[in-house]
């Protein structure tokens, strides 16, 4: 039996978990691959025109997955931390897919992820739907999930020790866990915190490899996954009310954490056109960086963004940071 995991949205964060789970259960896992023009076109054609690029890309990957496999994995993310939720589009994701992708009905596997406080989403309760559809025993499922959780925790520890998501995913695929830690770049001239959801920052089609471009400019990268959840939340304590979306809170919390970190020279907020939660997160990040006095810029990207103008903006920002740092060092401040 083949199951496809769309290479979009929270794939970048949870792939090791899902991959291990399905392999342990005896599935053949199909990865729909890095986003390309074809996938994007398929997605944009099927999806509603006003919806954000990540959802369009996800739709494209689902169509791709339906061609290559028997089933496609489309989880319904409702909450992983009380009292927060996910963006409504995540909560209605299987509904969106059923409404826009023809022939998807009955072929998408959609467990509901509705947990009180469990970022590892590996409780057997969630995946009970698999035992119903495919007839696994609960014991098999539990064993597979245990294995999956171990892998995911290992993956997370790599993130916390400073690897970016795509490098950690690489380690998972090659199974060279320890060696890869040495690949953390620490010798750059300046350090920039690149803040944004995993599906914006790592999708090479949306963000056009912003991280690789920055690293080529001799920049150290920090991202929100490197900040453990509890530390991110610790930084949000002065707000009257937290945001409603778990990953937005983590991005904002990590942003505030990096604003206090003297090592970090500037912040870049990577966001998709039409992203609802980011309209709020961006506003707060901007406001807080003004107060902290750290340079902040927003990269808003969609399926039409040109690469040239993005490089220009990144170069300008990095040059400014380097000059600022150089001036500070030479004046001995």
């Amino acid at each position: 039996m083949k199951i496809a995991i769309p290479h979009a949205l929270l794939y970048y964060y949870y792939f090791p978990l899902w991959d291990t789970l399905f392999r342990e259960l005896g599935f053949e896992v199909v990865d729909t691959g890095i986003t390309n023009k074809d996938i994007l076109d398929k997605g944009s054609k099927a999806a509603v025109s006003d919806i954000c690029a990540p959802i369009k890309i996800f739709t494209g990957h689902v169509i791709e997955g339906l061609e290559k496999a028997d089933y496609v994995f489309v989880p319904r993310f409702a909450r992983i931390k009380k009292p927060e939720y996910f963006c409504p589009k995540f909560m209605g994701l299987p509904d969106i897919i059923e409404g826009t992708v023809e022939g998807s009905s009955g072929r998408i596997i959609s467990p509901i992820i509705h947990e009180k406080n469990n970022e590892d989403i590996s409780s057997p309760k969630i995946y009970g739907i698999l035992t119903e559809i495919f007839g696994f025993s609960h014991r098999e499922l539990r064993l597979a999930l245990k294995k999956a959780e171990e892998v995911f925790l290992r993956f997370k520890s790599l993130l916390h020790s400073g690897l970016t998501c795509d490098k950690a995913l690489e380690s998972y695929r090659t199974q060279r866990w320890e060696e890869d830690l040495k690949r953390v770049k620490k010798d750059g001239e300046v350090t920039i915190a690149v803040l944004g959801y995993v599906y914006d920052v790592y999708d090479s089609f949306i963000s056009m490899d912003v991280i690789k471009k920055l690293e080529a400019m001799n920049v150290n990268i920090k991202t929100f996954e490197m900040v453990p959840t509890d530390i991110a939340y610790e930084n949000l304590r002065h707000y009257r009310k937290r945001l409603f979306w778990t990953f937005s809170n983590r991005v904002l919390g990590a942003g505030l954490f990096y604003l206090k970190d003297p090592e970090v020279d500037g912040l870049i907020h990577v966001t998709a056109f039409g992203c609802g939660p980011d309209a709020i997160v961006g506003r707060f990040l901007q406001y807080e960086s003004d107060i902290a006095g750290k340079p902040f810029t927003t990269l808003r990207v969609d399926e039409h963004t040109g690469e040239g103008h993005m490089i220009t903006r990144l170069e300008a920002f990095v040059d400014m940071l380097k000059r600022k740092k150089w001036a500070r060092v030479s004046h001995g401040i």
Partner: protein
Amino acid sequence: MKVSFPYMGSTIVYKKLFEFLEHEVIMPPKPTQRTMDLGVKYSPEFACIPLKMVMGTYLEAIEKGAKVLVTSGGHGPCRAGFYGDTHRNILKSLGYDDVELIIFDAPQDNWKAFWRNVQKIRNGVPWPKVINRMYTLYRFVQKLDELEKMVQKIRPYEINKGQTTQVWNEIQEKFDKIKTRKELYKVYEECKKMLLSIPTKEVDEKDKIRVGIVGEIYVVMESSINFGIEEILGNLGVEVERSLYLFEWINDNLVPWALRPKRFKEIIKKGQRYIKILIGGHAVETVGHIIDFKERGFDGIIHLMPFACLPELVTQSLIPKISKEVDIPILSLPIDEQTGKANMLTRIEAFVDLLRNRKKGRTKEVFVNEFQQHADEERVVVV
């Protein structure tokens, strides 16, 4: 306290609320292009249109002297619940330190904060008086909504164009002056008579066109942002019903779940045929109302949403499927500061023509699908 509030729908109700609590009310002006411009200027670019409009309204109310702004909060996952905090943040950065923004969140989220807000708003009016007056207000909303529903049924068939709207404006002025419950019932009867005395033409039942308006609460309820869609449709000879009325909203949201009307629960159940869980905003209700309108014999649906509204985008994704399976034409209109009236008017007229033809049986299913396709293509071009 000089109190003001966001402008949405029947604002005389909110005005009455604060008058009953013996505040000095600064009536926010009806949103205009200037309100929109002010809001757009100071709001995050990708916030939805309700946030921008309310921002503009606040700034205009502050110009008129408001010192306290009262609004509602929420607990997600729709962005609207965070608007209060975003507004406060913007007002602060604009230097309005003396303006207080009171945000009412659901009491179960934070009892203490809720109680503090209630005490502030109560303004020292003794409790028995408050309860009595709130009951009057409850009835006030109910009667006003009943009259509005009548207006929507009479307007399409009026003989003298514009008369119903004129009477409706008079009714609102009359309601504005009401002080007690006794007065309310008297004025209500008067107004009913006024409406019934409007001369109308006889229209055969099979020639009547009924359209249900569904979607996000602000763009559905506030006529200045949806270009007075009810009036436009009424003038085209179409009976209109909204999915949302203030009275029903109060019953559905402020009354405890166990006491809520059965109708609300049924609508949610119908909506869950397409959207399995509650995803915030009015997405599930919107789908439920579409199905409900069809079952009640409506001919078409107009779906209004702010551009990039999170929950309504889920609904919008499902509309082609629902339209096909439930067999009802649906026109989906995203609204933002760039939306032009002429564009909207053309599309509404075309939609009404389609409904008329369909009712007369002159159209085949193919045409309906084609129309939806054209509508989709047009949206791509316009946006």
